[in-house]
Every structure is written in C-alpha cells, then in structure tokens.
C-alpha cells in the first residue's frame, strides 16, 4: 500500500515545485527537495523491510530511570 502513496506525494510535490519555479523561490524548492528525498528514502527502506530505529526507543532508554524512580518514591 505504501508504494502508490509515495508516488502520490511525489506528484503533489512536483506540481508545487512548478508554481514555485515561476515565482523564482529557489531556496524553498531546495529545502523542500532535500526533505522530500529523505522521506522517499525512508519509504523505500520500509518497502524493502529494512529495520529503521524508532526515536521513541531513545527517549525510553533516557527517561525510563526517572519514571521508575518517581513511581517507586510515590508508592512507598
């Protein structure tokens, strides 16, 4: 299901770039293209079943100790 959605986003972005090019907004086009490329790469990696690390797991390892500490403090 992801593949057609990636194409959909690509087409929508290309349509937008066409009008931006007429207005000569090159800075906007470049930053948007870089982000779009990152998104497409992520999508393709996911289609190829490559494991992508979740940002949530980093947050969990960082903040789990505080959470445990506070829970233990309040329950005793």
């Amino acid at each position, binding site marked *: 299901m992801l593949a057609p959605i990636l194409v959909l986003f690509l087409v929508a972005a290309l349509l937008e770039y066409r009008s931006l090019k007429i207005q000569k*907004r090159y800075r906007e086009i470049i930053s948007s293209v870089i982000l779009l490329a990152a998104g497409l790469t992520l999508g393709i990696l996911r289609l190829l079943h490559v494991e992508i690390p979740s940002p949530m797991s980093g*947050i969990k390892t960082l903040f789990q100790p505080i959470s445990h500490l506070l829970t233990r403090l309040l329950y005793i």
Partner: protein
Amino acid sequence: MITQQMTTRQAAMWFILFQLGSAFLLLPRVLAGTAKQDAWLSVLIAIGAFFLLVPLYTAIAKQLEETSFSDYILELFGRIGGKLLLCGFIVGYPYLLYIIVLRDLSDFLTTSFITETPAEPILVLMMSAVIYIVRSGAAVIGRTVEILFFLVMLLFAFGYVSLIPSAEVTNLMPVLEHGWNPVLLAAFTMLIFPYSEMMLFLFLVPNIRQARRWKKAVVKSALVSGSMFLLMTLLTISVLSDGVVSNIMYPSYFAVRTISIGDFYERFEVLVAVLWYITIFYRLSLFLHVSVQGLAVVLGLQDPRPLLIPLSLIALVMANIIWPNTAGYTAALQVWPFYSMFFGIFLPILIWMVGIFKRAKNSISKEN
C-alpha cells in the same frame, strides 16, 4: 507572508478541540491506571496546577509584543544558537507529536473501528485534509472550527448524557483509598499531557494579536476542556469501575458502547468515533502549523508552505515505526510525561528568564 488574524472566540474553540484530541480516548485509562477510582480528583488537581502555569505562558506572550515566537527565540539566543534550539525544539516536540498523533489515529481506527482497512490509506486521507487546511492558514482554521465545534459539543452531550442512567456512585467509593500519592502522580501526567502542550499556542500569539486576548482564549479553553474531562472521567469510571477502565485501551469509547435504553437507543460509539476524528484533525493541524512555521524560520524561508508535503511524507513513514505494537505504546506513554516536561515547563521558564535578563541589559545600555 502576512499573518492571518483570528478572533479570541475562534482561538478558544481551536484550543478546546486541540486539548480534547488524543487525550479524550486515552486519558481515562492513563489516569485510572495510577489513581484508580480517584482519577476525577487528579483531573481537578491538574487543572488547578495548569492555572499556575498560565501566568508563565502569559508573561512570555507579553514579552513577544509584535514578533513571532520563533523570531523571538532567534532574538534571545543569537542567530546560530537560536536556530539550533528552535530546530531541536520543533523536531523533538511538535513534529514528534504530529507523528505520534497520526499513529494514535491509525491505532484506534484499525483496532476498534474499521478493522479491515490498512493504516496508510486512513492516514493519507486525514493528512490531505490537514495539509490543505494548514496551507489555507490560521484564519481558515478559525472559521471551520466555529462550525465543527458545535457538532463536537452536540455529539459529546449525546454520548455522555445518555451514560448518566447507568452510572453507579458506588464505583467511585472509597475516596482516597490509597492516599494522595497515586492521585498526584496521575495529576502530573495529565498536567503534562495534554495541558503543557498549550505552550505551542505561543506560536499563535501574532495571529490573535494581543497577549491579553491570548490569555483569555487559553483560560477559557482550559476551563471548558477541563470540565469535559472531569465529566467524562467521572462517568466512565462510575459506569465501568476503575478495574475495567484501567484494562481497556479506549475506555471512553467502550463506555458509550454499553448504552442501551429499551433496545432501541443504542450504538452511540460511532458518534464518539466521529467526535474523536474531528478533534484529532484540529490537533494535527496545530502541530503541522507550528512545525512548518518554525522550520521555515530555521531554514530562512519566506513561505513555509512548500515544507508541508515533505514533512507529512516523513511523518507518514515514521508513524508506522514509532512503536511496534500496543504494548510498546503503553510503555512509551509512561515515559512520555518526563520527556514532554522539558519542553512544556522547563523551556518556557528558560525563555522567560533569558527574556527578562535581555530586557534589563537593554534598558541599562540605553541609559548609558
């Protein structure tokens, strides 16, 4: 780009729907998991504690004067430091929340509502609406919210007033069985999620024009959404009892499913799902609005709109991997308040103090 204007009334309505958002379904379970039958007390404490945060936020809103929040950060921390801070803040808070709320939406719909549909089409349909409304700007969001707000209130009244006959007060007894500690812990969770997310409203101060009107909108919305949360928690727990509430993923949805008056007046859970869909829409649009506005300042763009499509694409892919399953979600929800606290409470305190310091320094240099 010209900042589009909203009235105080529109802003207050947007904020109410924003707070109802994901918390509407998840909060009763999170609260009842820690505070058991006293969850309604935690709601009261959390709202009380939030009104201690309001003066802090209003002080920042007053410092802003005419500048937008992102420009103000650049002004306080210098061009490079400010951009780094703003970028970290946007990616770590509103944008991450955008991804999480998208996942909330697909989790709820695929587990309890339209179980045959895969997650991606649901998200793409929602996202296209969100991208469209954020492209149109804050004034358009304000006008649509004036229409849909009353629909949400009507659905809420239908669903929850019908619960009153089956409520049993004995489920709320005994009060404070386990002492104050669990109640305070649950109140802390609720203060952070959803209330400290109100700090994102600081990005909307230029759209509402004055700090005084902004404060009015925030206070009004906190009062209305707080009383809705209180009513909802009281009813859900008194209908289902705390043991059931803390074990179901979406208790406020499940409670409405139990309504059956004379085998005719029943199946109101669809209304709750529609209500939730609308509130999630406004939640997502605020997160996306703030993310693009902030990132446009970081990248030095005049027009933030070209960022909408790429950012949504990344969010769509990330939403599927942010946690593997519901168990991962429950674990994440326990840690989330501690992470969110840094952005919702500590960052505003830092900005406020640096703001005071800068102003004092400026007035001294002017006198010399």
